[in-house]
């Protein structure tokens, strides 16, 4: 009984942590690389290196200033 309750609790915690990690990776843009890989596979492209990919993203950010409010 308790064993399954523990297991269920453990699974719930693991799921919550996974969700938090998913959210933070999406929020910071870290997950964009995964999306890019999925995209390349779907279209049969050879992906560029992660270094090149992140540089391209940084260059785009250079031209799109984020605004931060008061």
């Amino acid at each position, binding site marked *: 009984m308790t064993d399954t309750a523990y297991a269920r609790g453990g699974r719930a915690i693991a799921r919550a942590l996974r969700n938090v990690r998913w959210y933070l990776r999406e929020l910071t843009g870290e997950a964009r690389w995964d999306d890019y890989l999925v995209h390349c596979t779907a279209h049969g492209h050879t992906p560029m290196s992660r270094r090149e990919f992140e540089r391209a993203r940084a260059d785009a*950010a250079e031209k799109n200033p984020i605004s931060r409010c008061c």
Partner: protein
Amino acid sequence: MSGTITTEDSGGSSSAGPATGGRGSMKSVLIWTAVAAVGAVCWTVLALARGETVSALWMLFAALCSYAIAYRFYARFITYKVLRADDKRATPAERLQNGVDFDVTDRRVLFGHHFAAIAGAGPLVGPVLAAQMGYLPGTIWIVVGVIFAGAVQDLTVMFFSMRRNGKSLGQMIREEIGIVGGIAALIAVFAIMIIILAVLALIVVNALAESPWGVFSIALTIPIAIFMGIYLRTIRPGRVLEATGIGVALLLLAIVGGGWIQDTGLGDALTLSKEWLVLALVVYGFVASVLPVWLLLTPRDYLSTFMKIGVIVLLALGLLIARPVLQAEAITDFAREGTGPVFAGSLFPFVFITIACGALSGFHALISSGTTPKMVAKESQVRLIGYGGMLMESFVAISALIAAAVIDQGLYFAMNSPAGATGGTAESAAAYVNGLGFDTSAQTLAAASAAVQEDTLVSRTGGAPTLAVGISQIFSQAFGGGGQAFWYHFAIMFEALFILTAVDAGTRVGRFMLQDTIGNVWKRFGDLSWRPGNIIASAIVVGLWGSVLYIGVTDPLGGVNQLFPLFGIANQLLAAIALTLCTVLLIKHGKLRYAWVTAIPLAWDLVVTMTASFQKVFSGDPRVGYFTQAQTYREARDAGEVLAPAQDQGQMDQIIFNSTLNGVLQAFFALLVLVVVVHAAVVITRAIRVGQLPTTEEPAVPSNLVEPAGIFPTAEEKQAIAEHERLVGAGAGTHGTFDSGSDRGRS
């Protein structure tokens, strides 16, 4: 269907809102009745309690229940009935997806992005200053204001911008109201931005002056951010969570380290005067604006976002655990008499001006147009992102008000009265505060500063130190272990961190605006990659806010006391411009009968800002009216006298110059807004006469996305998503890069 006329043609059958199944189900009626009852009880306690101890939790829950009801009913009414958000229509993110600015984004992630962009120091500082009038006026305005004005503005601006491919506020005003209105709005936005940057920087300067601990930990954020930037660029590209984890750890170490160094030689070297801090901030702002973003701005933004979310969560938890008691009166005498030392003027209009961002913030209109609407996946999600995001900001403001209201009120007034009034020492400040009618003593004030390990807390104006004292009190009470000094500097660090992020992001945005505008006449200057252009434009922007900052820092009357009203009015005037645009658009779309949704907050905001501007320009009271103030000091100077708090002729001249300048700026902002409003009135009259007018709304294109509207998908939405999956099948992965993380991918 040219699509350029109105939004009425779309939506069609499902106009009343999303499919809601049990719309009036017993369970939902019971839940919402309970929420309303709890809210009503909380408000009653707050309103009627006099002379007894009131827990801060009544304030917290009065606000939360009100937000819940507003979100459930009013936001829904605006989204579906007034704006007629239509999920069958593709958003610009879906139609124009390019993975850069147009990008279909998960609604919860976009909520986070949007909230991080709108929330800053404003909602933290404004309520702290407004607490001089008691906790009740502030609480009422923060809650009522956000529900009927602030969140409505953010939501409607976001919706209209989304229907126009994410056009900016300025662009929409130019195209929908007219070229003169557009130019006036552009100038207003730029000028207001300069004032905002200067006032934000002023808050940092006031928090860090003569505080080696604070200076040490804030200064270290720069190398920490640069380290993260290099880490993400060369060592482990793209591993943001990893880098931010290291950054946060280093940041906490920097806060602890400040305590170690403050009594050493390094501590003496870092005990900086306000003037040196101004210089440091100006140099920093300039360098940050011309450096590549990956090196400093982006990594620091990660840090500041994590700190922001962390502190808000901690503060909410801390309040629930510590359950502090409100020390402030519900309404102080200053509210009635307008003689408060923190800022001059009576409850109406100045409590509204001072709270500003937490209830209604014109600056949000700049973020709700442009950046965010280009990323919205489904039209109905603007309710969550626009309205919900602003409710969250209002919650931050309520927390800040609580933090200011739970500290000893003698200490509150000793901290927030300008140095000219308190005399700067614990003894003189205690005498001054006793004179105001609050209980304190020199020993109490000295003990309070010793508890947070600062030399003095007297006249630490600007709101940030007060908030930090409140937070440190709540945290050390809730999480135990004493450590008030650590929590104080933790809170200072948290505020300074995102003010600095706002300062460099703002400088950069200002620089882009300037380059773009001048680029219309001098092509080369508009090229963002042209180095000399960057440097000149950055120098102009930094020079402008730097001079206002310097004026504020050296003002004998107290910079916060003088500049904060200017900042608040400027922000609220920008809101008037945004609400004017929304009202014009509702009427042009033929929705005159719903125009009250934005017209009522607009009317209120105009009454507040115009009364405040009028008093600031024409008031005969030298404490309120800038020109009367200048005149009083001019007469005294000509008679060869020196008027307190000025100490010599030089300071007399300074006051005269500053007050005149503030008065001119104040009048100028108000005139710009009136230009926009008058032009809008002409357009509105024309539109009412013919029923509706063509607008620049993009034609409807059917959408291929199925997404939930709120945070949690409803049963119907889950079913619709499953149905869509089945129909589209393998093709689901082809549009955009979205599928991996959304509900489907995780469940």
